């Protein structure tokens, strides 16, 4: 095993590579131009591909063949059309080129076989897997992913500054070129822990540039030219202003940088618009941009407050905010953070290099199995050949050591593993200053030793192995270096909940069950034992669907991203699978979030294994259709509710979502499971997006209204239960069950979760009413008033009505109640049940 040591910041605007070596981090410089940063830009020239700053120079000149900012599109279906190639390239392919270029920063004598690549904390599995793929395609044998705020924390805490770093809570505020992360870090004597994080993958430096374009440059162009539809035309992809669009983006970015230092700047450019030559001179002041940047900065501060509040903390509990990312140079960011949080800001780490440096610190403690070392020179080959002739090490003994190379503690553990012929072999560990010596200890297959550390220095130890005659076997000698006083990280937290979809047969829908909770440390492995909820006949077309989703456990399944889907059809079975039989589902999530599943059907003794493709989307059409119908019904109900409450704004928004959803209904319904086209992915994406937008509709105001509605419904329900004449105790138990989970779902601020609880309250409300004699009498009188058309089977209902009358007269209420229930089941209902043919997942 060898330490990875290389860390890469694959940024939206710039990328860097650094190496951990001998307890120091070195950020490599581009051999051409000697800059540490490589612009994350790729230019396709007629006969060659340019990467980095050279490519960036063509951004304004040849926009159709130059690409930047693609990090934000990783893991999406987005493709970039390259005119010079006449073909499309993906964000992952562009990232591969950046990574290959970064490898060239490292001298050829150093073999870069593996690397740690950083990703934003909020990247979903698709995005992180696309990054992983880009790394492997760039030629790395092994790639480890690291969340950017963790990298920043390691850089900050391990920086050799005199700034005091007391134990407690810290915030890492990482506003990069295209993404934003805020992480709550807890520092203790043992190391660092990521307590929680929030982020937005579409909030970063480029959004400030877009703001300058939208609010200043476009209005000015329209004012000077009088072209009314300019803004509309300007935004059209591959439209007539494509070149101007990229030029303006370039100028906006330059203006933003200048205004960080100066009170005003002028953008000057020429353009031919509607066959007229224009020269634009647009003056932009700090005051102008203060106004337009504030909403963007506020968005980041809102997330900052959220992460603090969600962990039961206040701003006074936070030691400092550590600023990371190029966009934190903006004065507006620093001013607003100070004014709105009052937390001291810390800009002691270099916002540009800290992520790469932190990644290298992490890489120093990450190990991989290297390829056999390549002989690089004739001299080395001669030495190797000579060494091969001398029997320094009996070939039948191997010794390996495992330890952490940085520690805050006074001692650190060393794990020694050996195999081969261990009889009569000994080891001895000594510290270079002579202050520690284990003496000779018998070598065993596994041993641990605690090594005492001298504070604040790099502690060097040597492990020597001896044979029975006390002769040292020099080739087994190991050098161990542990830097005392440096911080380490416990592990990487999971950014989202990982759930699987199970049937809620009673409500003819599905729900999410958590497999791995957000913020659990990776890697994770778990085996679930469940029952099959429907019979699947051998050879039939029935299917069991194991859907693994990433997102928020409180939301409806359709709002989540499917990261794994296993379908077991009747034709895959060796015998019938009977309802109620057992299913074992083993789920593994690696450090780099690669998902592996093993499903075992106990009844048929069959195993199904899957390692999910890094970028492949998983969709089951039948499940998608059911999710669609559920979402459509919820939207219809919500539109009616908004109409009832005369909330016109939300009503319009909900109708727009409903119409957008329904626009794909025809295509979805005609889709067959074996459809080869991309249609199912397109529709699945739309359903997920609309479901998420529906959750966000009305924002905090709607959540507050729903919470108020929930609390009111709860009070009313309690009164109804208290008036119940039957099953009062049972009803009360059900009421308390809902109430118990109250804190969690109210704090989740998730519309779907609160809505779901409201529905449960409503169901219980009806149940309580049906146990109230007064209500039953009212219902009975109502049923009696129906004509024959009001019943599904009037002949059956007629004698029951008579029996109910008689029971009521005798005041035999339990009997009366039974009869009213029977009558109600014979009454025609106007409520359409869309789930009569509910298939679900088949997992209970």
């Amino acid at each position, binding site marked *: 095993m060898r330490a990875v040591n290389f860390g890469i910041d694959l940024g939206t605007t710039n990328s860097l590579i650094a190496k951990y070596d001998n307890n120091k981090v070195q950020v490599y410089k581009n051999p051409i131009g000697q800059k540490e940063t490589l612009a994350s830009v790729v230019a396709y020239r007629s006969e060659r591909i340019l990467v980095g700053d050279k490519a960036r120079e063509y951004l304004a000149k040849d926009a159709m063949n130059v690409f930047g900012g693609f990090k934000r599109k990783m893991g999406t279906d987005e493709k970039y059309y390259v005119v010079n190639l006449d073909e499309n390239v993906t964000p992952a392919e562009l990232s591969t080129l950046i990574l290959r270029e970064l490898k060239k920063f490292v001298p050829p004598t150093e073999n870069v076989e593996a690397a740690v690549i950083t990703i934003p904390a909020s990247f979903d599995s698709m995005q992180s897997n696309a990054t992983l793929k880009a790394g492997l395609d760039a030629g790395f044998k092994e790639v480890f992913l690291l969340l950017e705020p963790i990298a920043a924390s390691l850089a900050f805490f391990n920086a050799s500054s005199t700034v005091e770093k007391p134990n407690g809570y810290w915030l890492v505020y990482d506003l990069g070129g295209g993404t934003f992360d805020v992480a709550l870090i807890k520092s203790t004597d043992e190391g660092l822990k990521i307590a929680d994080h929030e982020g937005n993958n579409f909030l970063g430096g480029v959004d400030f540039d877009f703001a300058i374009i939208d609010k200043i440059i476009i209005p000015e162009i329209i004012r000077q030219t009088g072209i009314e539809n300019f803004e509309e035309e300007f935004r059209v992809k591959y439209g007539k202003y494509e070149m101007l669009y990229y030029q303006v983006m370039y100028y906006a970015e330059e203006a933003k940088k200048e205004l960080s230092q100066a009170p005003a700047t002028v953008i000057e450019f020429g353009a031919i618009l509607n066959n007229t030559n224009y020269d634009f001179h647009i003056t932009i002041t700090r005051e102008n941009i203060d106004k337009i940047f504030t909403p963007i900065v506020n968005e980041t501060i809102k997330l900052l407050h959220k992460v603090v509040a969600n962990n039961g903390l206040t701003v006074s509990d936070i030691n400092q905010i550590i600023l990371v990312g190029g966009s934190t140079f903006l004065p507006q960011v620093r001013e607003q953070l100070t004014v709105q949080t009052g937390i001291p800001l810390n800009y002691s780490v270099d916002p540009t290099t800290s992520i790469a440096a932190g990644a290298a610190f992490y890489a120093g403690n990450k190990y991989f199995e290297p390829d056999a070392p390549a002989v690089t020179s004739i001299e080395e080959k001669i030495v190797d050949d000579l060494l091969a002739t001398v029997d320094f090490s009996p070939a039948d003994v191997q010794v390996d050591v495992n330890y952490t190379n940085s520690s805050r503690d006074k001692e650190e553990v060393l794990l020694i593993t050996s195999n081969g012929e261990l009889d009569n072999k000994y080891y001895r560990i000594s510290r270079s200053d002579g202050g520690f010596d284990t003496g000779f200890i018998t070598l065993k297959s596994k041993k*641990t030793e605690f090594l005492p550390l001298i504070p604040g220095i790099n502690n060097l130890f040597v492990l020597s192995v001896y044979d029975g005659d006390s002769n040292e076997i020099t080739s087994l000698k190991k050098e161990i270096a542990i830097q005392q006083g440096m911080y380490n990280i416990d*592990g990487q937290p999971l950014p989202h909940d990982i759930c699987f979809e199970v049937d809620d047969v009673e409500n003819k829908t599905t729900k999410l069950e958590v497999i791995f909770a957000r913020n659990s440390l990776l890697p994770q492995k778990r085996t679930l034992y469940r029952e099959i909820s429907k019979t699947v006949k051998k050879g039939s077309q029935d299917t069991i669907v194991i859907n693994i989703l990433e997102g928020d456990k409180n939301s409806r399944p359709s709002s989540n991203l499917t990261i794994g889907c296993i379908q077991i059809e009747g034709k895959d079975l060796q015998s019938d699978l009977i309802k109620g039989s057992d299913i074992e589902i083993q789920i593994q999530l690696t450090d780099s979030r690669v998902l592996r599943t093993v499903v075992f059907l106990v009844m048929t003794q069959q195993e199904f294994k899957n390692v999910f493709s890094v970028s492949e989307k998983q969709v089951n059409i039948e499940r998608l259709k059911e999710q669609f119908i559920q979402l459509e019904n919820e939207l219809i109900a919500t539109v009616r509710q908004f109409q009832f409450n005369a909330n016109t704004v939300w009503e319009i928004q909900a109708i727009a979502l409903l119409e957008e959803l329904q626009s794909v209904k025809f295509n979805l319904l005609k889709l067959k499971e074996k459809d080869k086209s991309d249609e199912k992915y397109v529709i699945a994406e739309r359903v997920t997006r609309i479901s998420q937008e529906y959750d966000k509709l009305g924002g905090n105001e709607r959540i507050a209204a729903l919470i108020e509605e929930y609390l009111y419904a709860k009070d009313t329900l309690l009164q109804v239960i208290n008036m119940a004449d039957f099953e009062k105790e049972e009803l009360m138990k059900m009421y308390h069950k809902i109430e118990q989970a109250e804190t969690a779902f109210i704090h989740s601020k998730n519309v779907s979760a609160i809505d779901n609880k409201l529905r449960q309250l409503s169901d219980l409300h009806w149940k309580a009413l049906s146990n109230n004699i007064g209500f039953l009498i009212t219902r009975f009188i109502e049923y009696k008033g129906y004509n024959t058309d009001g019943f599904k089977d009037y002949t059956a209902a007629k004698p029951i009505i008579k029996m109910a009358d008689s029971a009521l007269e005798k005041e035999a209420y339990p009997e009366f109640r039974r009869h009213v229930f029977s009558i109600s089941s014979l009454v025609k209902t106007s409520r359409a049940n869309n789930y009569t043919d509910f298939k679900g997942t088949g997992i209970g």
Partner: protein
Amino acid sequence: MANKHYISIIRLLRHCGIGYDGELSVSKIKKQLNVEFSYSANGYIEVDVYTYNKNNVMEELELPIFYTRLRYHKKI
């Protein structure tokens, strides 16, 4: 927590050769287990049919009632 089903830590301690009788130092046990987890191929340690992952083991060790739970598990 929803994502963990409890498995006694004793089996793991025994597997790693970590003593759990007499006076214990949680900090030392954590260090030993940390290095054991980083040494394992996938980041999990499998003992018989049981899988231990670092997250759950460290959470268990950090519980204020860890010693009480350990005593209880030693009895059973």
